[in-house]
């Protein structure tokens, strides 16, 4: 059962991804991204990481993709919705395949086999988030703050701009 599920999700994930990097229409690309992200959330579920799946859908599917689409709207100009790849895309493909050629064997050799996925309790996550991982948590909040301030400073139209 989970094999089938896994394959379906994987197909959607990768298909979405490929669409993002292949399509010539940027809006479609955004939608493809959404598909792929949701599929990834599914993968999390297969791995019993329900909380993560939730976060994934909310933040990615909710926030990020929306922001991206807004950005697309705001920066719409002559070439949109049609976009294209740059001059070096064949090289890029080669490099990407090369990396794949390194990663795949790296994962395959002495791979760990036959382990059951175990699920992690919400409470456990929450607890360690506020004990062991307190510092990263606090810092992450600062990161968000900085991003916020920065975004305002940079994007806000200053004096003398329409």
């Amino acid at each position, binding site marked *: 059962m989970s094999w089938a599920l896994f394959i379906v999700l994987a197909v959607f994930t990768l298909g979405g991804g490929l669409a993002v990097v292949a399509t010539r229409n940027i809006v479609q690309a955004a939608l493809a991204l959404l598909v792929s992200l949701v599929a990834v959330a599914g993968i999390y579920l297969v791995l019993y990481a329900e909380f993560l799946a939730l976060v994934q859908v909310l933040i990615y599917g909710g926030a990020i993709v929306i922001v991206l689409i807004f950005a697309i709207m705001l920066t719409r100009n002559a070439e949109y919705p049609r976009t294209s790849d740059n001059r070096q895309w064949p090289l890029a493909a080669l490099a990407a395949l090369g990396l794949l050629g390194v990663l795949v064997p790296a994962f395959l050799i002495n791979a760990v086999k036959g382990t059951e996925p175990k699920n992690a309790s919400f409470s456990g996550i929450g607890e360690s988030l506020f004990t062991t991982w307190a*510092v990263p948590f606090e810092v992450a909040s*600062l*990161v968000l703050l*900085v991003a916020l301030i920065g975004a305002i400073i940079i994007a806000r139209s200053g004096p003398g701009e329409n």
Partner: protein
Amino acid sequence: MPGLTDNLELLTPEFALAGLAFLVFAADLVLPESRKNLLGWVSIAGLIALIVVSILMVWDHDQSLYNGLLAIDDFSLWFKVLFMGIGVFIILSSMDFVSEHLDHKGEFYGLVLFSILGMNIMAQARELLTAYIALELLSFSLYVLAAYSRNSPKSNEGGLKYIIIGAFSSAILLYGVSMVYGVLGVTKFEAIAAGLAVASEVSPSLWVGMALILVGLGFKVAAVPFHMWAPDVYEGAPYPITAYLSIGSKAAAFALVLRLVAEGFVPVADRWEQWQLVLAVLAAVTMMVGNLVALAQRNLKRLLAYSSIGHSGFLLAGIAALSLDSSLPSNGVMLYLVGYSVTNFVVFGAFISFFNMTGKEMMSDLAGLGGTQPFLAASIAIGMFSLAGLPIFAGFAIKFYLFTAIADEGLLWLAGLAVFASLVSLYYYLQVIRQMYIEPAEGEAAYGHGYGYEHVDAEHGDGEHEHGETDEPAPRYGATLFETFPALGRRPSLTILAVLGAGLLAVFWIGVYPAPLIDTIEAASRAIMS
């Protein structure tokens, strides 16, 4: 079960720093445009106070909080002091610039403070994710600051390139982390070391993962071939931020690398033996490319960018030489960071002041500065000599120490290459000095009438006798520049003078008698080379 509040007092400096930043942001809202410099002074005062506080509080501690996510030890203390000191200098040297060239003055200082907080935590982090988040805090501030002068296309471009390549590299770094985690199940440095020690038949994804982590950090320290963003971002960023990039973020990244390698890799002696080579090669390529390409630069910011790439190469060589049985390499790296930073304070301080006066940043614009601004010119010259590694300046002492450490570790070839690279660097540093003091050759036209051969009579073409006749003090270029920019007549502002004065003192002090400094460094590196 360690709680959120255990030993919380040990983090006082960090909380205080965050508080300081918030204070600045808050005060920014109420202060009028004209008084924003006050914020700068506030942050400086706060930083100095924090330096004192943290020295008093956590001197000679050796603890590790939150299951070893954070280290409160002399190493982190040493770097924290260094970072906050850097912060003081950066803010000092940027005050004029900010009030003249930037809007959103208040946030500027706040962001700088946040970035310093990020650096502090990077120096303390003993776990990959913590390190990563701290790194992102630093990076985000820098992304914003790099794009800070909003209406300059260059600044935008720099910012864009920086953030996209930055995000890309952090994705790579994280993938590396995930691969390591996938094999070892841990992300703490010591735990990694322990895991490596026992791991025999493991998936090679572990090695690849480490390589990817190295890539992520290599981007941060601008190691070749992950360096290409540096020149553009340096050139695009506002001048003080350029300085900050080449001093602060580099130092922070190396603090992280030092701890990671020293606690995570070095203890596994037999593995480390093998990996040294990788780092050594990376270092060799970096120092050569950085210095060679710098030869061809005409824009001062780009020049310094490439030169800082070259220096990263030297530092990486020091990293590659780390070993259990001697603390020389880690001392060398830290000493080098200090010497490099103070030298750059001087150089950038002078350049920023020059920019404030003329708004120019090409090497050729410096021509004749020796006549119009003797002190600035002298500072730049000293800085250049120091960067080139010539004696009685910091550059010589630190290079000698670091290279000795490298050679002592058996990497003589790398040390030799480093020495050669610093010869190459000498050429372009001298080009700057030449621009300021020596009038560029005018070619044929400049040659006067002679007999057997013609003898050059360009103005002060010949120190022997010409000057008796031409009593025009400043070289011609200086003169024209002088007419165009009357600001050149003014004395550099007090803040700049403070930076230069302190920097020069430090440069000479480290160059002549670094022993006390090295004692503190010794203590710091003992903390990580346990």
